[in-house]
């Protein structure tokens, strides 16, 4: 590793899907540390690569290097996904490997039966913006985090915590590996149970809205319960500082309101004037802001806890007859520190309710479902009712009215974000956030 072609390295990293800074000019790159995982005839190493830019903070990426020829690096995963088996066996044995600047620790999470036997097939599954994944024998999935940020990854942190506290609606954690040394301390990857029979919650809901709406309502009622249990567990350990529920700061509601208010003002400033789909809310920006002010005029905000952070139907599976919650990484665009911040659990709830609105419209467009507006309303009611019956009430604002108000603020925040996103990316979907904003205005008018 001591010599390498810097340009080839930059060329390689900046070509990858998971490379995040496509618009910036790389000025310099360097391998900060390289850790041999296998030294036999087919060597394999983990490399921490730093990219520096002309301006702004640098980035660190994880590479799995399977070989080198004339200074050009080869990616161990693309080359041969099976090479990732080495990482799993290191977890199984709990090895610690030494680099020049720090160590990589591999750790097993628990006695997962799939972990104890030899692994057979390995295939690379769609790598996304921040990580690459390998599935073994349709039983285990290894996720490698590509762009590294200092600190424990929230997915590892939440899966461990939820598992240890008896919440079963998650894929079991198999193990993980992390780096700690001079450049940084960070989670490099984790191994999870792969639920091969799992049905995507979003697709299933769309199908059922069209074919069996009553069944989907029962299911979403159950999802409310599961969500309530999840939040109760997340807020249950007062002795763990990373998870103990906290009182939000005095300004928190004011800061939230101001932030959402600015966002509303910005979005309404740039609304196209000739778009029929926008007509119901066009020119009503001030009215929306007025409603927001009424919603946040007074009232408690409950406590803040660790949350899922990016909660919607696309993050769920139905495995067997019950729900499984996936992907605790939080919103990928936010920094790791932001994603680990404690927030009101109602933020997750708002995310899920907004996703029902999307499901209703998508079912209509893509599955020809009818009566979706009524379905959405009933789905909201069912989900919320069972959620509020289950969740630890001390985490929420006191009183139904205060809960509704805070929930409406979070939904408004989401809907305004969606409006901007859909205008830029999917004009056909604009009517979903438009309807959402309209409903919130109606609801707020009734509540106040």
């Amino acid at each position: 590793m001591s010599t390498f072609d810097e340009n080839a390295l930059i060329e390689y990293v900046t070509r990858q899907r998971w490379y995040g800074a496509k618009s910036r000019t790389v000025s310099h790159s360097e391998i900060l540390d390289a850790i041999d995982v296998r030294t036999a005839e087919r060597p394999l190493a983990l490399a921490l690569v730093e990219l520096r830019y002309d301006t702004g903070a640098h980035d660190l990426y994880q590479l799995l290097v399977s070989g080198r020829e004339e200074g050009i690096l080869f990616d161990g995963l693309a080359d041969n996904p099976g090479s990732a088996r080495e990482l799993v066996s290191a977890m199984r044995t709990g090895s610690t490997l030494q680099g020049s600047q720090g160590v990589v620790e591999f750790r097993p999470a628990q006695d997962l039966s799939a972990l104890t036997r030899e692994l057979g097939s390995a295939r690379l599954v769609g790598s996304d913006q921040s990580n690459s994944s390998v599935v073994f024998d349709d039983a285990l999935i290894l996720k490698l985090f590509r762009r590294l940020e200092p600190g424990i990854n929230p997915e590892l942190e939440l899966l461990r915590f939820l598992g240890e506290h008896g919440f079963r609606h998650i894929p079991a954690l198999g193990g993980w590996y992390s780096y700690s040394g001079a450049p940084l301390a960070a989670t490099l990857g984790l191994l999870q149970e792969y639920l091969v029979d799992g049905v995507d919650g979003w697709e299933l809901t769309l199908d059922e809205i069209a074919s069996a709406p009553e069944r989907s309502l029962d299911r979403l009622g159950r999802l409310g319960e599961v969500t309530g249990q999840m939040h109760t567990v997340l807020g249950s350990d007062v002795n763990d500082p990373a998870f103990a529920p906290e009182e939000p700061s005095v300004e928190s509601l004011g800061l939230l309101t101001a932030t959402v208010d600015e966002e509303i003002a910005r979005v309404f400033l740039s609304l196209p004037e000739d778009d029929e789909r926008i007509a119901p809310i066009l020119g009503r920006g001030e009215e929306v802001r007025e409603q927001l002010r009424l919603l946040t005029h007074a009232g408690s905000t409950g406590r803040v806890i660790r949350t899922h952070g990016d909660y919607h139907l696309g993050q769920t599976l139905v495995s067997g007859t019950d729900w499984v919650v996936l992907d605790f990484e939080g919103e990928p665009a936010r920094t790791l520190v932001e994603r680990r911040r404690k927030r009101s659990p109602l933020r997750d709830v708002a995310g899920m309710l907004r996703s029902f609105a999307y499901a209703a419209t998508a079912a209509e467009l893509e599955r020809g479902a009818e009566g979706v507006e009524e379905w959405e309303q009933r789905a909201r009611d069912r989900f919320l009712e069972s959620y509020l019956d289950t969740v630890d009430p001390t985490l929420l604002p006191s009183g139904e009215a205060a809960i509704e108000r805070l929930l409406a603020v979070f939904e408004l925040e989401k809907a305004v974000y969606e409006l901007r996103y859909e205008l830029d990316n999917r004009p056909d979907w604009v009517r979903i956030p438009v309807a959402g904003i309209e409903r919130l205005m109606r609801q707020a008018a009734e509540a106040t």
Partner: protein
Amino acid sequence: MSDTWFERDPLWFKRAVFYEIHIRGFFDGNDDGSGDFRGLIEKLDYLEWLGVDCIWLLPMYESPLRDGGYDISNFFAIHADYGAVDDFRNFVEQAHQRGMRVIADLVMNHTSSDHPWFQESRSDPKGPRGDWYVWSDTDERYPDARVIFIDSEPSNWTFDPLRGQYYWHRFFHHQPDLNFDNPEVQEAMLGVLRFWLDLGIDGFRLDAVPYLFEREGTEGENLPETHAYLKRVREEVDARYPDRVLLAEANQWPEDVVEYFGDGDECHMAFHFPVMPRMFMAARREDATPIYEILDRTPQIPDNCQWGLFLRNHDELTLEMVTDEERDYMYDEYAKDPRMKLNLGIRRRLAPLLDAGMDEMQLLHAILFSLPGSPVLYYGDEIGMGDNVYLGDRDGVRTPMHWSGDRNAGFSRADWAQLYLQPLMDPVYGFQAVNVEAQLRTPTSILRWLQRFIALRKEHPVFGLGSYTPLRSDNSRIFAHIRAWEEDTVLCVHNLARSAQAVQLDLAPYAGMVPVEMLGQTAFPPIGELPYLLTLAPRGFFWFQLRQDA
């Protein structure tokens, strides 16, 4: 600590918005009537929301507080009112977690007379610290060095009856100057820097930095020896603590201050003092000339250096760097009550200086944010807090932050009488009228405007990194200039007059481009070959991004 904060961005300070905090006055976390680090941590979410990149702390060290903590009696301890070193460490970590950095004041020039070093030096002239301060048998050495605190100190020498000699002090007599000719003193001060850098601090504002050395026949300011020592400090910081910053407080003319940048190998930043009174002068005279002139007089600085710019800070609005005539003008206009004067300056906050005029506050922030440099905000000015000129020294601008209309302005849960100073109660600036909570809720407040404005500035690195080209016109009431960096070209036009103005700007080099107003994203008519006509509201301003197409 540093394993969670590793972002290496050597020029971060060029794009940063700084926020200066008087810890005692910010928030009381332990209900004893005085602000502290625990309280500061509770308010970090607010500062993050506001868009602050770097917090600058006024002195936090152990001190008898005869000069607001600039009289340090132990460089390695936190003043008990503020907490302990662990609280400080925790604070820095919490700030870093929110993406904010922390720098703190450090006084290298002198200590408190209570400092054990001084006590040893005066009682044991032959002892190990006998030569750590500047002692003399006469008070006639260095006669060319001016007295800075003319209101309270007759001389730079004070006689110590115990040692039977005079000691040198450029500031108060209870702040003896350290003898930087002694290599042990130089080394001891490096030890102080290392101690705080190891705790994770992101840099220092070096207080009173021009005065470290004394030489006969000189004014004792900006001496070559001082620069040599600062370069040594920089070398030490670069070698062991990358991405930290040294900010020089040198209240000098720009041509002298640039010396503190060296060749990019001395201080990273220095305050631009003379530009500040000229912004106020320009606003009062309704004439942009003083701003143009001082910027014309400002030399180029190395690419890896930056000016620190501010409207107001914890000290008096200093008038050292103006002519006598200009000073008289400033006193006449801004300090009608003699109580408002202090030393060579005016001890007032931003809002009272501008009669709480919303347009004026926005205009001055716009000018500040448009200039080449990094803006430094002073706590409380973001809500237009007032001052109390009846309090002594500079306490009038150091009263508690107004968080809400609740008891003690939401600053403390202690008894009213127990507060280190009482929040303002007058009908215009009192905490019932001017506070964070109320302004957060009011979209038209100065706080909400400033938050938007900071966000806007940060979207455009050109303001921190770009070139500056003045655009003079026939209308002297207009301050206009162009900032450019990479693809981003920005035209800033400010009307200093109390009346509406029209101006014709020569924008021929940008012919064909379209000015898009940056706050509202409105496209203006394209620039042609003829002078570009703009009309501005009283105290109004426009910031345009010049685009190839709308």
